[in-house]
Each structure stands twice: as C-alpha cells, then as structure tokens.
C-alpha cells in the first residue's frame, strides 16, 4: 500500500454506487442460476435414487468427484471448450451444488417414516400424489438445510468466477480483483465484505423461508 492511502474510503463508495450495485446483481446472477439448475437436477436424481437404491452410491461418487476439483481448475478446464463466457462459470457452479443438494434431498426423502407412506397409500394416494403431498413437504426441512449450504458455497465460489467474467459478469470478485490490481484497499475490502454479507443474508433468508413454508415444524406446544 502506498503511504497515505486510506484503508477504507467511504467517499469512493458513495461515488460508485451504480458500479457496486451492478457487481452485486452480477453476483446474484452467478449464484441464483446455478442454484436453480442444481436444485432441479438434484431433485430428479434424489427421486431416482430413492426409487432405485443402487444408483445412490454411483451418483454420490460422481458428484463427489466433481466437487473435489478446485474451482479455478474447473473454470480453466472449460475455457478452451466454451470460451470466456458466462456459461463457463455457470457449469462448474452448478455441478458444485449437486453433491450437497443430492445428498440432502435423498436424506430428506428417506427421513419420511414408512408408516406415513403406508397411511398415504391406505388413503388411496397415487404414487405421484404421495410424492407431492406427503414426501416432498415432509422432506422440506432437510432439503432446505442442503439449499442453505449450497447457496453459501456458491456465493463463495462465484467470487472466483471474476477471473473469467471481468467487466462482463465478474460479480463481487471483480471488485476484489480490480482492487488488488490497482492497490486500492477500499475496492477489494468492499468486494470481500459484500460477499460475506451476501452469504449471511442468503442463509438468514432461507431460514425464514423454511419457517414460513413448514409452520407445523415450528409450532409451539400449548398454542403460541
């Protein structure tokens, strides 16, 4: 740091609100798209694994292998194929969510007690009705636990996508990278702090969301 540089310059932040908001929106794009895709893929995989138990182990092994590849390497492996485009960031960010989401969805489904499933069958539910009206609602708490973890992880990994995205879709990581390259602490600290704030907010909102859609799980005994 050159002498005389302020560690944090609020004036700069006030002058660049537009740019900062744009980076936040880019970061949300990098996070929300992979999460939605990841949730859809994992849901299908988890339903399949609950019906056909023998596919559980291979799916865990493959998603685990994808999860082990460091993010910078995963982005890099795709660059020669898909170029330096948004899709190059979205593919690994999606595959990273699969291990967490698949396992939490599968354990959510298997956590539904067998007698509840039998009761549903006894009431004449078809397989599809049982899935949507009984298994899915009861699996929600464990599923959301997985979504919370996946979203926090994705927000973190998306900061690395700045090495690909640059101005176009770099997100908060781009603030960090530009700040480092220009030796300007305000910029990189802002990017870092905002990414942490984003991760905590996402986690907090998902906890509230879970309480909202599963009121029965949090009902107080004795009417409260």
């Amino acid at each position: 740091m050159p002498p005389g540089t302020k560690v944090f310059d609020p004036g700069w932040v006030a002058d660049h609100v537009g740019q900062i908001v744009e980076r936040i929106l880019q970061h949300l794009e990098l996070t929300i798209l992979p999460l939605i895709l990841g949730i859809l893929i994992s849901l299908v995989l988890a339903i399949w694994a609950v019906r056909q138990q023998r596919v559980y182990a291979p799916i865990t092994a493959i998603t685990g292998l994808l999860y082990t590849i460091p993010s910078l390497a995963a982005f890099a492996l795709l660059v020669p194929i898909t170029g330096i485009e948004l899709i190059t960031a979205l593919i690994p960010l999606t595959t990273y969510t699969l291990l967490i989401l698949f396992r939490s969805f599968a354990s959510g489904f298997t956590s539904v007690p067998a007698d509840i499933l039998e009761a549903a069958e006894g009431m004449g539910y078809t397989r599809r009705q049982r899935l949507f009206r009984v298994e899915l609602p009861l699996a929600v708490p464990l599923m959301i636990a997985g979504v919370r973890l996946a979203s926090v992880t994705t927000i973190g990994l998306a900061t690395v996508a700045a090495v690909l995205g640059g101005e176009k879709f770099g997100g908060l990581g781009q603030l960090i990278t530009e700040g480092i390259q220009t030796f300007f602490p305000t910029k990189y600290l802002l990017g870092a702090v905002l990414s942490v704030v984003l991760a905590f907010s996402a986690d907090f909102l998902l906890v509230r969301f879970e309480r909202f859609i599963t009121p029965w799980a949090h009902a107080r005994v004795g009417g409260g």
Partner: protein
Amino acid sequence: MDTIVAFFTDPANWSGDTGIPNRLFEHLYISGSSVVLALLIAVPIGLYIGHTNRGSGVAINLANIGRAIPSYSMMVIPLPLTLTLAPVLGYDPGFGLTFLPIFIAMTFLAIPPLLVSTYAGLRSVDRDLIESGRGMGLSERQILSQIEIPLASSILVGGFRTATLQVIATATIGAILGGGGLGRFIFDGLSQGVAGYPSIYSGAILVSGLAIGVDLLLAWVQRRLTPRALRTARRPTAGPPTLSADEDLQWSATAA
C-alpha cells in the same frame, strides 16, 4: 491436445522457479503449513469441547460463521494488515502480499472442519464405553487417548480430508494474489489469451490430479480406520444412509 502434451514434455516446464516441480512444492508447502497450524489450533479445542461437552454451542457457531466466508474474500481481508505490518515487523512486502494473507486465509478456513469433526467424532463415542472406562479406573486423559480418540479416528480423518481439500483448492486461488503454487499455470495462462490455453489446461489437470489424489489417499486412510464391523455392515445397504448423510453435511461442504 497436442499442445498439452507439448507442455508436459517441454523440459523448460520441468526446471527452475516456474517449473512444475517447484510449483508443486510451493503448493504443498503453503497447504501443508497452514493445515499444520490449523491442526494445532483446532484439535486441542475440539478435544476439549468434545470430551467435556462444554462451550460446544459457541465453537460450532464460530465454525459455521467461518464456513460462510468465501475463500477469495478471506484472502484479501487481512491484506491491508499484512502489507502495513511489513516495515514494522521487518519482512518483505512481497511476502505480505503473496504468502501471508493466503496462509492466514487457508489456516482460518481449515479450522472449522477440523474443529467440528473433532468435536463430533468424540461425541459419537458410546457413552457406556466411557462410563465403563471410568469404572475401570482410567483417568480422563486415558479415556481420551485410549477410548475416545481411537473410536473417533475415522471421523477425525474425515475432517482432516475436508480441511486439506479446501486448503489445496484455496492455494490455487492464491495465484491471483501472485502467490506460488500450481494455480499460477492457470492464472498466468488466462492473461495470455489463446496462447495461454496449454498452460491453463495443464495447470487445471495438475491441480485436479493433486486434489483427487489426496482425496483418494485420505479416503483410503479413513476407511482403514473405520472399525471392521461398521465397514462390512454398510455394504449390503448401499442405499441412502439416513442419519449419517445429514450429519456428514454439517462439516463436509467446503469447496473453494
């Protein structure tokens, strides 16, 4: 494909400071030293709270907070401090940019999985076994070293595995700050456009190979340490493990 083969067969890429052996050494050096420091911090605390069950709420919450912080962000937050302290403590400013902040971030990121797995491993031990140990006149230290740690060892190695992989991945990102390690092949390649593709690809192959290799090695160790009875019992029911998957999630999710 040919260009990647050419990259790996070029003798220039196998010698000097920017060669594969030195980059691999740098990668292992920074990863190893931060995991060792994290072990020295996390394991004693984890053993204490696991054995006594005191302060577990605080420790687990701190570990959760640590996990929510993106590794790239974690790396730049100490940066103003490590740069400012360079003249004060008399180290090279380059060290304060390309080693120290990465090292601090990696240590910090390795602590949560180590702490949580140490605690969870100890808590997983059957209370009756500990009580019978006490009844046999074992001291608390002996209960810890002869009953709890051996029985928890596979879970402890599981946490070590998560922490190590997290650290290897984070060391790769350290290249953005100009740190050494295998990530440099990727990051330096990205700044060269199409000409950099062989370097990018080769770096990615090396880093992924290292991560997958270490993961398989530690998975093997973990399996060896799992009591035989539990190992074989799991085979016939290859379906979703109901409880363990959920418990596993608590400390397994830390990609970087």
